[in-house]
């Protein structure tokens, strides 16, 4: 199979969905981005002024009137009211009469990781693709989905490459991918952290510890079944989340497991996250800030090596 970048996988999904469905319209400060152009899809690739409330709001409004829209705000933060107060609430507050098939492509990573914030909001679906393969299949599903979807693209993943089928395909929401099988410890990782967890799992295997690496792929809906089944077997959980530690996916998944699989746990849950700070600029600080394979390795070893203190 051919190998392409995460960026090109996204562009390919956009182009294939636009060719498949004439109601798809894309808009952003750079038009539709890589892969789609006004020449290929006349009138359906809209260059937008850098006024994100306006064009994200327009994408939402058009989606209520029979279009499937994809909006790509560059900075993202200035259009949250449109996403939280309008798109997310339409269906519920309109008594189930609205369909709002809008996809908001939101970059994350170097500036901040806000997928937990979107995950918190009822009415939104949240997708966090970890590889080019996931990016293409999940974006195609997002465009075909009838609910508003926030599609979170990691800026550091754009130039990563992977095997991607040329033909169109979709990956269903709410179905985790088990990246690696293992019976000693479950490592759940989100977005770019999946590769970090897989690297740590490789090193753990060299030391005789088999980790099961789970990529939820979507944080809303969340595939709780796969996570709980895995912890049911391993009895140990490490969650790796690039978002800061308060109310992130690590705390959410840890709470789920603590409540639903308490009896299976053989060790306290470990969460590998950045500290409760903004993302720093200096590479020296960013290295300290970000979760990496060594931090995941340390957490997994701590969980596997845990021995309950004698109660007597």
């Amino acid at each position: 199979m051919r190998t392409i970048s995460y960026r090109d996988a996204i562009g390919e999904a956009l182009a294939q969905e636009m060719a498949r469905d004439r109601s798809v319209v894309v808009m952003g400060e750079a038009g539709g981005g890589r892969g789609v152009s006004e020449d290929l899809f006349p009138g359906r690739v809209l260059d937008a002024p850098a006024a994100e409330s306006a064009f994200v709001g327009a994408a939402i409004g058009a989606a209520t009137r029979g279009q499937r829209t994809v909006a790509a705000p560059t900075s993202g933060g200035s259009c949250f009211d449109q996403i939280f107060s309008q798109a997310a609430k339409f269906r519920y507050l309109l008594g189930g009469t609205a369909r709002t098939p809008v996809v908001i492509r939101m970059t994350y990573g170097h500036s901040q990781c806000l997928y937990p914030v979107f995950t918190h909001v009822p009415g939104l679906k949240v997708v966090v693709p970890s590889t080019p393969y996931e990016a293409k299949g999940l974006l195609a599903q997002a465009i075909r989905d009838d609910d508003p979807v926030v599609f979170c693209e990691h800026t550091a993943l754009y130039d990563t490459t992977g095997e991607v089928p040329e033909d169109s395909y979709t990956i269903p929401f709410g179905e985790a991918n088990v990246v690696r099988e293992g019976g000693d410890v479950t490592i759940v990782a989100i977005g770019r952290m999946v590769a970090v967890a897989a690297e740590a799992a490789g090193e753990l295997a060299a030391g005789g510890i088999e980790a099961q690496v789970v990529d939820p792929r979507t944080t809303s809906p969340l595939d709780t079944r796969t996570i709980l089944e895995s912890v049911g077997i391993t009895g140990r959980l490490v969650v790796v989340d690039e978002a800061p530690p308060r109310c992130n996916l690590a705390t959410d998944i840890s709470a789920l497991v603590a409540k639903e699989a308490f009896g299976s746990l053989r060790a306290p849950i470990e969460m590998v996250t950045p500290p409760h700070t903004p993302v720093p600029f200096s590479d020296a600080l960013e290295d300290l800030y970000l979760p990496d394979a060594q931090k995941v390795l340390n957490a997994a070893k701590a969980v596997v090596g845990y021995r309950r203190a004698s109660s007597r």
Partner: protein
Amino acid sequence: MTGTLREAYRLMRTIRAFEERVHEEFAAGELRGFVPGHAGEEASAAGVCLHLDDRDAIAGTRCGHGIAKGVDVKAMMAELYGRRTGICHGKGGSTHLADLAKGLIGANGVAGGGPTLVCGTALAAKQQNTGGVGVAFFGDGAGYPGATLEALNLASAWELPAVFVAENSGYAETSASTWSVAADNIADRAAGFGVPGVIVDGADFFAVHEAAGEAVERARSGGGPTLIEVRFTRCFGPSDCLEWFRARVTGSGEVPGTVLDDIDAEVAALIEDAVCAAKAAPKPTWEDLGADVYVSY
């Protein structure tokens, strides 16, 4: 035109009676939440919406805009009462009154929430070549948020079939717009976006109707958006649009006063019926609480 005059009067009277009754119910503790009033501003909703049809969508700010767009009065009243029979099944309330089937995308709970969404409904109409237009009503309070100004710019840049109707009551919630709108006229802002801007007297249905007709026609024919500033004073009296309308059409002999009296009586009965039906209707239940967050999840 006589039919249109009767229809216009009926709409304005319905809006007036509906909102006066809502305020009575609210004051009596029968209604909860926040109920924005439109009393005194009926000519704007009616004068604009009488140009619209099923192809068109509006974003409103109050109940009156929905009534003018043809939303069922009884279902709206039931919504304000939080009833299951409400237009949004009791989940939207006054600040999210919407009826997509009638092209009402919402009486938005966010000041300035409507204009950006209307850019989208106008975009959809343009994509689908329906000839439809999008109309955003917003109060002078919604003239401050950046999103409203961004929407004007986007509608102009994309040549969208949109009409922006700024309803200037002189007050935004509790602040006087004479100091908070940093320009003498909201309509003057249109020039900054390359859009025509006009000012009309909100007490004069005919002035609003004529200006809206031109703006809607411009939008339908591909001429892009217009900003209409409808000016109101908040005191009733000589500037009251219903009295003004009645004096004009009975004075000219176009519509007899008895016909208008009959309409008044019919509307009063309709509103009474709507309130009684709403009070008698069932409230939503536990099953409704979790329903309709998503199409599928």
